[in-house]
């Protein structure tokens, strides 16, 4: 083990080096703050590199819609933020329907989104769908579509955010798990395996482990660690540009520029967050395989090269915790419930506003940590 004589001070300590931790550190640094990120493993080791790379506004929980829309704009210009395009490819996200009932559900949903003032979700008919996604099964009769959504490369993204942070002077301490947090006057003293760090502000971006950090800070926030699973195939000739999901079924499907096809959408294995381990659940994987063939018959013979799962934090209501804790200058941002990748750019900005301005320009009330108080 490294010497634990390390000790440093900063304006803000960010706990957790996933995309949200890095994005928060980045935005704080852009506004001139001195930031230390402490990460128990390696930057991006967990959900932020295990994820499916879906950049989607489509189908978001209503409170997330304004944040997601703001983040979508940042994705369009992500290179300006991190000097790297993060592999972002804008096309369409579509949600497929194969019954009239499903089409009705999609129409009702699009109306709800229009009612809160957003126009991005459109209903398309079978012909338009087939023009957009020629490989789709003839059984699909239409879809909901969002133009400008797409996917990016999670590896490239976390690497770009990490590098940009370092360029801006953010210090990272990897292999530096937080064991204890103490109040020292107006400062917080964060004790890790790698030393003690002191700063007036703390942001908790610890993902599936966010509940533990919250407890150290006096907040009772229950987050459940689950292990969403993914399948990736061999490289196939290019056949689809859009990212596809399906109404009422856990399913997400996309082809990357290198030809590999990624299948996911919600089936989970078993998470063991204490030992960084996930177990796959073959029934869930088999269901993915079935669903993929149902919507995309071309997939029947495709070879699966790898399956994996990542550890992600889920909140009981399926949306993250974003906001101030009870103690002074403590902020939480975790529990993104398997859809936090797209929100990475904007949530970092929101947290920087919370730390520096004590208020955000975006509507974050629905994400308040206090919402679970009995």
């Amino acid at each position, binding site marked *: 083990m490294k010497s634990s004589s390390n000790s440093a001070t900063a304006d803000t300590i960010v706990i957790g080096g996933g995309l949200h931790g890095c994005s928060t550190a980045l935005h704080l640094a852009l506004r001139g703050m001195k930031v230390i990120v402490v990460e128990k493993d390696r930057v991006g080791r967990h959900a932020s590199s295990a994820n499916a790379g879906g950049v989607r506004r489509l189908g978001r929980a209503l409170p997330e819609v304004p944040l997601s829309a703001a983040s979508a704009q940042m994705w369009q210009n992500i290179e300006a933020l991190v000097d790297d395009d993060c592999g972002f490819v804008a096309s369409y996200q579509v949600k497929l329907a194969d019954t009239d009932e499903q089409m009705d559900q999609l129409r009702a949903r699009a109306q709800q989104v229009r009612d809160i003032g957003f126009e991005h979700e459109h209903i398309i008919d079978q012909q338009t769908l087939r023009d957009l996604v020629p490989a789709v099964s003839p059984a699909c009769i239409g879809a909901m579509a969002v133009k400008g959504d797409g996917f990016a490369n999670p*590896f490239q993204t976390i690497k770009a955010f990490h590098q940009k942070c370092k360029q801006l002077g953010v210090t990272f301490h990897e292999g530096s798990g937080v064991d204890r947090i103490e109040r020292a006057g107006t400062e917080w003293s964060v004790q890790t395996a790698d030393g003690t760090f002191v700063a007036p502000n703390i942001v908790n971006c610890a993902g599936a482990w966010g509940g533990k950090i919250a407890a150290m800070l006096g907040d009772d926030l229950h987050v459940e660690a689950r292990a969403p699973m993914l399948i990736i195939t061999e490289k196939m000739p290019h056949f689809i540009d859009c990212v596809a999901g399906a109404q009422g079924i856990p399913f997400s499907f996309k082809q990357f520029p290198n030809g590999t096809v990624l299948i996911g959408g919600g089936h989970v294995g078993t998470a063991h967050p204490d030992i960084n381990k996930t177990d796959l659940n073959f029934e869930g994987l088999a269901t993915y*395989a079935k669903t993929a*063939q149902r919507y995309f018959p071309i997939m029947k013979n*495709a*070879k*699966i090269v790898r399956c994996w799962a990542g550890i992600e934090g889920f909140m009981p209501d399926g949306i993250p915790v974003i906001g101030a804790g009870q103690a002074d200058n403590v902020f939480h941002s975790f529990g993104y419930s398997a859809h936090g990748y797209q929100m990475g750019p904007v949530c970092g900005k929101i947290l920087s506003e919370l730390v520096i301005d004590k208020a955000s320009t975006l509507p974050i009330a629905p994400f308040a940590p206090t919402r679970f108080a009995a």
Partner: protein
Amino acid sequence: MMQSQFDIVVVGAGPAGMSAAVEAAKHGATVCLLDEQQRAGGQIYRNVAQTTPAQAKILGKDYLAGGRLVQELGQSAVDHRAGVTVWNVGEDGAVTYSRNEQAGQVRGQHVIIANGATERPVPIPGWTLPGVITAGAAQIMMKSDGLVAQNAVLVGSGPLLYLVATQLLAAGAPPKALVETQTRRNLMSALPHFFGAVKDWKQLVKGMRFLVTLKRAKVPRYTAASEIAVEGTDHAQAVTFRAGGKDHRIETDMVLLHQGVVPNTQISRSLKLDHRFDDIQRCFHPVTDALGQSSHPLFSIAGDGAGIGGAKVAAISGRLAALNALASIGKIDAGLRDTQAAGLIRSRQSELSIRPFLDVLYTPPEEVFAPADDTIICRCEEVRAGDIRKFAAMGCDGPNRTKVFGRCGMGPCQGRNCGLTVTEILAAEHKRTQNEVGAFRIRAPLKPVTLSELSALSDTIHQDKTQ
């Protein structure tokens, strides 16, 4: 419907797996033996039951010795499933495989992993060109395809390099040359182990005999060769290297590479069993006790998959693993296990006495572990040694992170071809040990499967549960 519950499941039907299965069945256990080859035998005894007299003459006595094991297996009650590729081993003892694009699953109370060795990757410039194959591949073609490589230039070091050279000779296709990396220094450092090895003088004599045969046939040998590369644009055209202070160039369209064999750790890694790096054999192997018990109670490991020891050692360790498995599921008691094991452990020790000598004599040259920057190391994603060094400078400190930095190890071979090289390069760049740097995480499927196979699997599992 095929039986799916067994006392013991054995993966791999080489000398280790065959002996394990036969031994376990002898004690009354129900045993299922799985192997992706069409016939039992493993690498060394590949196809031995089908060998023609002409092949037998070329391949030699050692090869034929495997025939007895195959016969014993045939007479046993073991349920041997051939042509099945195992692509997942669950921590609960469920072993999932495909056979003719159909998925199947068997479950053992104990699982013996006997999946053998693979040839060590030899990343040199041009090693991805058609016309460059491994020496083992050339041997496999003699055993299974009835084909012999002509005008081959053999490159590298190790007993198998000489064995294949003499087999080619016997088959009427003398190799064009042997380009050996082994140096006098290797010999000098191997000598201290010589007295350990003389216990196994028979093997030593055999090694010498190879050399004599090659000399008689006037096959040119270059030793202490370095800076070896294969020339060609779409196909191998020549091998170039330095030896004896001179540059050499030998034209050939057939290059056979070999730098020894290393344990196949795909299954043991996927189960996250404990592994350790062996500094002398320069490879990782799973940690086991004398009986082959791994760090997980349900799994034993036998044969070259647990550490390179050769065919005889593999057969003995197979029997030991069977005793271990039988005792762990209560088929025999610990006392019987220990009395039967004692003799086997002794004979394994004497078989192993030659290993230190061979391991040091045939240590691969540093070039293999530290390829030049523009040499491809990940054949699937075409990542070069220099890329890994660049990633290291950017903070990449472990094999799994090379995936993040540049897709290294993410192709269909799942890192089989680049894993060890990546570990070595990162260890050198960061001045850390190979143990500290670690190895790729391995995930199911161990070998690619089709979507339709995977979806059919859920039906198989369901049937199983409702039974």
